[in-house]
């Protein structure tokens, strides 16, 4: 039990005992006092009664009636009447008993003559004034009695006990109520005081319990100046000390924990990084392997394409000369057109090879990706298929700087693949969107961070399994029938996009379709509008340098057709020599970049050594990047992608010459 109930259980019975004792004592002494009081006034009433009977008796003697029985009897009756008029309380009365025990006078006439001689109280009567308790049918009476000798009467002044003790008896319920009320009040007060006195103890216990449970911020709010207050202050002081110690400990633990956490974080990060590095290394390794493989293939393809381009250049040049010479002659026009078609197909093949080898980009320009989408859709022959093409282009699409032909080649190839993937018909959807490639995505995709335009081509075709997706950009991998494709389409597309600094993602689900997301790097500079296609003729001497005699021959013919005088050189060394000798006459040098012996770069440097102002148009079947770009940076005046047309040649030559003039 707690202290509070202990106090109550200890003191409340004592209080109850005290009140009960007080009430009982009060009642006892009240009753005793009432007894004394009743005896006093019963004695007084008895004296009055004796006086009455004495007066009556005296009256008898005074008038000589003492021997007349009727007079005596009348005197006694009158005495009885007078006695009945003496007030003995409300219920008390005075009566007389003859010596032989018969009631002589009684206010209740029915009792007159009653024999009470055998009652114990009558037998106890003495001829002296004495107190007695006598019984009546209604209960015991307290009485005082005396003996009146002349009439041989016991005169008794009697009052029922309930009246004698009426006050005390009436006090009982009041005392009970007061006692009960007092006990209740004292109990309440005691409970209040006990609660008040034990409250600090309870608070101490409660707070100590909280403190014991670890709530060291707990304080005991006792401000009294007694022992509890002192104890509380000491306790609070102790807890503050404990709290400080704990706080220091916790700070140390926190510091240590933080250190461990940081170490762990670092470790985890390191592990993650190592995993990532490992993964990237693995990927890189694969990429290196893939790149090596692709480079080998690309070198092969590039060599083939170079040679093949030279062949096509020869064919193209000669045909152009022949066509120019033929003028309006229509006799061989059809054949010439056929030759043009073959050259074009061969050129496309070389373009694919060069694209795959990332060597096919000859000339970039600022383009509208949405226009590219429209153009690519227009290139697809949809009339014979049940394919429906939809587009969703972003209006404020960023501009990209691309080789338009190559990118169109990529889009056309992918759309064509989609059409072929849906022989039973389906939907092709093209859309454009501006995207920001962050470091993570850029790293993942192997591109530089920055703005890109995403061109997405989705079909509802058969889709591909994951293993197939990994191979679709491999050269000569095809799902088409052998006679329908070369297997260089997607490999070339991939090469072209990568060559443009972009990236291709493929997402495919079997039986649902495939989506190609082509990311093209955004061009953020203004670009001049392409010029018109009219031949630009001029004059002057042009030194044409190429290791391929056919090129020299065709080129010379084309330049002459354009109004220029042409010196030719079969290699770099010859070109330097020739330029040194005739540099004052030579207006422009058209220099092949890849030549055995002294290559285009070295020859360019020599020419520039001879004439720092020399105008040089670099020509190559490879792309502009790489060595071509380096030469251009060293002051080369222009670049032309082989095989070039007469139109392109006239524009390039004219542009350099005009700028210089």
């Amino acid at each position, binding site marked *: 039990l707690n202290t509070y109930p202990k106090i109550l259980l200890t003191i409340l019975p004592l209080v109850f005992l005290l009140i009960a004792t007080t009430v009982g004592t009060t009642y006892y002494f009240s009753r005793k006092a009432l007894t004394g009081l009743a005896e006093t006034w019963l004695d007084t009433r008895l004296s009055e009664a004796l006086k009455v009977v004495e007066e009556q008796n005296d*009256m008898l003697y005074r*008038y000589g009636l003492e021997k*007349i029985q*009727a007079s005596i*009897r*009348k005197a006694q*009756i009158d005495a009885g009447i007078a006695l009945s008029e003496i007030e003995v309380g409300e219920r008390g009365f005075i009566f007389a008993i003859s010596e032989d025990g018969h009631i002589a006078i009684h206010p209740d006439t029915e009792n007159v003559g009653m024999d009470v001689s055998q009652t114990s109280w009558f037998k106890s009567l003495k001829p002296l004034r004495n107190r007695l308790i006598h019984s009546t049918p209604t209960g015991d009476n307290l009485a005082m009695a005396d003996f009146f000798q002349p009439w041989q009467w016991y005169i008794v002044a009697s009052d029922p006990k309930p009246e004698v003790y009426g006050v005390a008896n009436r006090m009982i319920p009041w005392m009970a109520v007061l006692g009960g009320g007092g006990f209740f009040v004292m109990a309440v007060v005691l409970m209040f005081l006990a609660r008040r006195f034990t409250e600090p103890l309870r608070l101490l216990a409660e707070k100590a319990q909280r403190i014991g449970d670890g709530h060291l911020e707990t304080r005991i709010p006792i401000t009294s100046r007694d022992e509890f207050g002192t104890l509380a202050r000491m306790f609070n002081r102790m807890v503050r000390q404990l709290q400080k110690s704990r706080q220091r400990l916790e700070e140390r633990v926190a510091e240590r924990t933080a250190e461990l956490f940081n170490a762990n974080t670092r470790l985890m990060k390191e592990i993650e990084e190592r995993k990532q590095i490992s993964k990237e290394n693995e990927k890189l390794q694969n990429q290196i392997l893939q790149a090596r493989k692709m480079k080998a293939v690309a070198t092969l393809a590039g060599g083939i394409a170079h040679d093949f381009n030279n062949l096509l250049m020869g064919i193209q040049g000669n045909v152009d000369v022949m066509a120019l010479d033929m003028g309006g002659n229509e006799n061989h026009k059809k054949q010439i057109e056929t030759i043009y078609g073959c050259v074009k197909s061969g050129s496309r093949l070389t373009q694919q090879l060069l694209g795959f080898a990332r060597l096919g980009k000859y000339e970039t320009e600022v383009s509208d990706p949405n226009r590219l989408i429209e153009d690519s859709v227009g290139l697809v022959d949809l009339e014979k298929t049940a394919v429906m093409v939809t587009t969703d282009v972003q209006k404020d699409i960023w501009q990209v700087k691309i080789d338009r032909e190559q990118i169109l080649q990529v889009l056309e190839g992918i759309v064509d693949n989609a059409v072929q993937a849906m022989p039973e018909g389906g939907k092709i959807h093209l859309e454009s969107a501006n995207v920001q490639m962050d470091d993570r995505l850029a790293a993942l995709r192997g591109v530089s961070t920055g703005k890109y335009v995403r061109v997405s081509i989705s079909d509802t075709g058969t889709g591909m399994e994951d293993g197939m997706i990994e191979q679709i950009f491999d050269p000569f991998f095809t799902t088409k029938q052998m006679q329908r494709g070369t297997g260089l389409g997607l490999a070339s597309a991939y090469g072209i996009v990568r060559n443009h600094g972009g990236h291709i993602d493929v997402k495919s689900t079997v039986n649902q379709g495939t989506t190609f997301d082509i990311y093209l790097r955004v061009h953020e500079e203004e670009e001049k509008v392409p010029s018109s296609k009219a031949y630009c003729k001029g004059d002057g001497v042009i030194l044409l340098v190429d290791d391929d005699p056919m090129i020299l021959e065709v080129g010379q013919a084309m330049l002459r057709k354009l109004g220029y005088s042409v010196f030719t050189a079969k290699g770099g060394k010859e070109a330097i020599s020739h330029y040194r000798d005739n540099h004052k006459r030579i207006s422009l040098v058209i220099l092949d970049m890849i030549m055995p012996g002294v290559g285009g770069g070295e020859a360019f440097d020599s020419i520039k050594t001879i004439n720092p102002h020399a105008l040089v148009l670099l020509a190559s079947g490879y792309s502009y990047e790489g060595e071509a770009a380096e030469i251009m940076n060293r002051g080369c005046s222009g670049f032309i992608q082989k095989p070039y047309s007469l139109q392109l040649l006239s524009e390039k030559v004219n542009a350099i010459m005009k700028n210089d003039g």
Partner: protein
Amino acid sequence: MMVMTKAFRKNFRIVGFQFFLLVQFICFAANAFSSNTAHQPPPTILRFGVHVSEIGSFDPHLAAGSQDRIVADMIFNGLLRYEPGNAPNIEPDLAERIPEFELIGGKQVWTIKLRKGVMFHAGPEIPAYELTSADVVFSFRKSAKKQSSAYAGTYDGMRFVAMDRYTVHIIVDKPTSPTLFLPKLTNYAGGFIVSKRALEAGGKKVYQAHPIGTGPFYFERYAPGKKLSLRAHSLYFRGKPLLDGVELHFLPDIKHRDTGLLSGKLDVIIGSGNKKWIEKITKQPDVQIDTHGVGEVMTIYMNTRMKPFDDIRVRRAVALALHRKGFLETLAKQFVAPVYSPVPTDFLPGGLNQGQIESLGLMYSQNIAEARRLLTEAGYPDGFALQLVSSEKRLYRSCYEEMSRQLAKIGIDCHTQVVSHSTMHARIRNDPLPLILYVAWRPNADRFLSRFFHSDAIILSGEKPDTNFSHYSQVDRLIEEARLEIDPKKQIQLWEQAQIRILNDMVALPIMSVKQCYVRSNEVHYGHPLISTMALYPQFTEKTIVVEDRTDSNR
């Protein structure tokens, strides 16, 4: 429902009666108004037939006969009065209230405040005037003088002082209880207030011819042997009487009286105790018989100084031989009631009733054997002879006869001489007799005991010889001290002890009380209940009326 019905009937009667009074009043007023202009109706006079032929005295302090008291009651007032028809209850009359006393210097001083505006009747020599304390003092001083009052002894030891016009002090040397004092101020005997001016102007003679008082009726004329006429006192302080007047017709013969009543010539008559007459008159439809107190008490007195009644055993033997029932049967039962103590319990304090007498062993129930034994013991085994005197009045004669018959059973031979009533009175006072049967009324216990049992009242030899026919003197101290006792309870106890002693000594044997009997026309309404009256007639007051309109020649 029954109670409501009774209450309703009672209320209806009261309301009806009040309405009737109102109608009568209106008629009376209308008649009074029209009397000057048209037919004047005869006045409403109540005609009362009395049993005597003349008035003894108009002086109320000398009134002895019942006719004298009747006249005094209508002409005079007291300071107090017995409630009309309800004696002995007392109420203020000329006094404003019941007086109280204070003890000053050992003497009792009673202060009387007089009612203001009380007017005396106009007399032949003086006009009407207002009663003052001077008239009161004059009256009591007159009552206290033997020469002018038959009740002088009543006022011994009392002095009367007029304090102011309306205040009188009565100083009593020996303090007296209200029980004995207040009756002295009532409209009875010496308590009547007379006109000082009238008596001083005309002397005693004026009251012999023309009494003047303050009562509801004033004296008009008197024709001895015929009638006495009284008229309504218009200035009466309780209001003018409803009656115009009262006439007393002197008709000693009961036959004349009842003939007058039944013929409508009388309205009220004094009746007779004769049983046959009662039976006859009871059958009459238009009359009403009234019996009421106070009743005179018939007692047999035994002369304790005359042989053989000087022996208590003889007296007790006589008492044991007599039986009240025989006496009661001589009269109609409406008139009589047994009496067991010298002072009757009806109408007076101080008597002992039957229960008390029985409890005290003083009943003396008839026991012939015991009576004979006592006589034998006393030396009269064969009895003895008695010479007695009776009044000629029927009541006396019949009772003496009854007594003789009863005493004969124990050998006592009564020889009764019948004489006139007045002779009887004279004989019994002047010639001691062994046994006397006497009928009388006294206004209180003291008067009863003093006049019949105090030694002063012993005939011939007493200091104030009166009617102590027993020559008894054993209760003098009790009577005297009771007279002076101012505590009414103790006073009564003393009276009772005196009577116990008297009965124990068998000095006198009370027999019965005889009520008064009056017969009235149904048209007469007294205006008050009729239980008892000290005036010895039903009392005619300002409220008494005769309701029938009588215009015939019978008036």
